[in-house]
């Protein structure tokens, strides 16, 4: 096949750079993949209790930390915001949380405290909380997409990259958790 010289090559297609680089897969595909991995003995099914003990222990530590930081900061997430920068949600999903002993829980508390303290001092933290286990699904029988969400923060940031950097510095990400960053679309 003849190779055309570069000057004659058609320029990039208009609009191609606006096509999404990511396309969400069907919601059912994750379960199918995990089931296939289980069938091959590649992954271990978590305990029947759901998240498993070690995750629960991590959640418990995180919850204590959030409560402690909230109390220490007084109205940390009740403070009215005048920040007009874009807001983002940091959605906390389970990852590879380590088993936490008492020493580790104390360290986790210090890490959350330091991280939230920095955000609060910079006026970036708006709210946050931990979610309880379990989810009600409507209509009954529909897939409980996102039911393993563990908690969330709402922050202000200059851009999605800035929000992503904040998320990457969070103790949750440090400990192997997955943080999904979503822009809040409602203007203020």
């Amino acid at each position, binding site marked *: 096949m003849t190779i055309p010289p570069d000057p004659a090559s058609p320029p990039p297609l208009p609009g191609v750079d606006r096509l999404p680089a*990511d396309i969400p*897969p069907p919601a059912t595909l994750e379960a*199918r993949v995990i089931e296939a991995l289980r069938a091959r003995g590649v992954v271990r099914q978590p305990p029947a209790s759901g998240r498993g003990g070690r995750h629960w222990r991590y959640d418990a530590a995180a919850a204590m930390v959030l409560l402690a930081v909230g109390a220490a900061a007084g109205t940390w997430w009740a403070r009215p915001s005048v920040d007009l920068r874009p807001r983002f949600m940091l959605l906390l999903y389970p*990852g590879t949380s380590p088993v936490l002993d008492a020493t580790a829980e104390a360290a986790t508390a210090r890490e959350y405290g330091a991280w939230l303290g920095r955000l609060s001092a910079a006026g970036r933290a708006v709210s946050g909380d931990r979610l309880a286990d379990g989810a009600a699904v409507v209509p009954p029988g529909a897939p409980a997409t996102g039911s393993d969400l563990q908690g969330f923060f709402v922050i202000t940031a200059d851009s999605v990259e800035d929000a992503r950097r904040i998320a990457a510095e969070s103790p949750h990400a440090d400990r*192997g958790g*997955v943080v*999904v960053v979503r822009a809040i679309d409602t203007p203020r």
Partner: protein
Amino acid sequence: MSEDAGPDGPLIEAARRGDEWAFRALYRRHTPRLYAVVLRMLAWRRDEADDVVQETWMRAAAGLGRFRGDAAVATWLTGIAIRCALEALRRLSASAPATTSDLDGTATEANEPPIDLERAIAGLPDGYRTVLVLHDLHGYTHAEIARLLEVDAGTSKSQLFHARRAVRARLGAVTAEIVS
């Protein structure tokens, strides 16, 4: 290619130990990109794309022990996905030869891409479409494409030339229909 510098290392280590949560985290982090590449390579045949993505994760799981971190996890996974998609294209081509001269011949109504440009790309012959998707939509260089497709870089450039021209022709025809 741009790389996601997320903390994949601990997840990979945990996945090697068979931790399901780690696999789920890796899946959620990387599958939207894998799915986009595969779906486009397969001209929006969704059922086949699902199969290819599943096979990608099976092979990735089998290869975790050999993954040494020389490449980013995203690059490694995408390479596996592209190879799986190429195999699927060969199977599909063998079972139902495509009418490669017909730009409408590939995408079926059930798998209709959402916009004209995607539709025009989906209608390309397999070889043109693969190169255009990898180069123009997902940032691969001709050298990288040449390695993945086991062709030389000149072939990749030539395929891209013809692919872009065919898409422009297709979009021009659509525009002409609308105007008339």
